[in-house]
């Protein structure tokens, strides 16, 4: 298994996901007083406050996932808005017995982002696609920015499915099993997408001389 072990208990406890791989866990849905499953049940009963809470919990990751696929912030935000509004209009689209809410949400997000990516004309990447580290000196920040841009360009060149796999792996807490389910592929196929994506990115970074982690 790549990265994370499959979460076989995910259907037994709401929002029980495998260990996160990214550092942004402070806003994790796991810390919510009401978990996503309970909130989703309330949304289905027309509870607007539960909807607001659910949006607040999942918006950062939803935007991040869409942004990894689309590479543009504004479009990623539009996708996130579209996904949440459609869910509010038709909450029964999420069927609790079939998947965790997060798995379903990120699947819908990835699919929507892939749709948009296929229809969109290629546009230049965002100028500030990746954030700067304020702890670095000006020269280091400039170098870091160049490396980040090189990586963003390399990510943009990846096939859409590989970008989607990367988005789910790095931006959500889904286990490999859930991420594969979100993409409607086997775990092996998901792992293969990740390996190919990482290899391509690493080779492109090394080829361009952008290997220093700073």
């Amino acid at each position, binding site marked *: 298994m*790549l*990265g*994370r072990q499959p979460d076989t208990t995910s259907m037994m406890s709401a929002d029980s996901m495998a260990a996160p*791989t*990214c*550092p*942004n866990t402070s806003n994790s849905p796991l810390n919510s007083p009401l978990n996503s*499953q309970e909130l989703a*049940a309330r*949304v*289905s*009963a*027309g509870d*607007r406050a539960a909807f*607001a809470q659910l*949006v*607040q919990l999942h*918006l*950062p*990751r939803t*935007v*991040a996932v869409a*942004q*990894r696929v689309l590479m543009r*912030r504004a479009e*990623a*935000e539009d996708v*996130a*808005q579209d996904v*949440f*509004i459609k869910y*509010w*209009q*038709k*909450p*029964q689209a999420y069927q*609790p*017995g079939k998947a965790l809410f997060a798995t379903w949400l990120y699947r819908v997000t990835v699919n929507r982002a892939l749709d948009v990516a296929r229809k969109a004309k290629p546009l230049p990447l965002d100028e500030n696609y*990746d*954030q700067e580290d304020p702890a670095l000196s000006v020269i280091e920040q400039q170098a870091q920015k160049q*490396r*980040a841009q090189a*990586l963003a360009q390399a*990510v943009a060149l990846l096939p859409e499915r590989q970008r989607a796999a*990367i988005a789910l792996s*790095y*931006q959500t807490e889904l286990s490999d099993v859930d991420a594969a389910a979100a993409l409607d592929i086997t775990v092996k196929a998901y792992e293969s997408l*990740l*390996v190919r994506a*990482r*290899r391509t*990115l*690493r080779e492109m*970074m*090394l080829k361009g001389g*952008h*290997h*220093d*982690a*700073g």
Partner: protein
Amino acid sequence: MTQDEFSDLLDMYGADLSRWPLDQRGAAQALLASKSGEVWQIYQAAQFIDQQLAQPAVPSRALLDRILLASTEVAEPPFNFWALFAGWQRAMAGGAICASLMAGLYSGWSTQLTAYSTVTSTTSSITTDDIPGLTYAPGEVGEWQ
């Protein structure tokens, strides 16, 4: 561990060695400790990729407001009682409701039975003599006078 094996494992598990299989970590650390320039370049590139790809998105407050405002402009989803109960809770709620219905039915049925048996046992011990004016007239079958 060769450099190629190290690269393959980096692609599989990422640059965080704590996520690698236990039996591979020692060899990977030994390879890094050898301070081979090329191995370090590969490792640093993988570290940078992991770090950049894991950067969280911080959506603006405006986006959250926009979504919540947009949700007020569309019709609320119709009230769905069963939606209050998800998964096993739904089964439990269904079971509880069925159980209460059954209990109610049984209770009503047994009350009727008790009432019926009380009435029959009482009436069976009453004779027509006990009721003034109520006499049975032979010849007029089935008629009470």
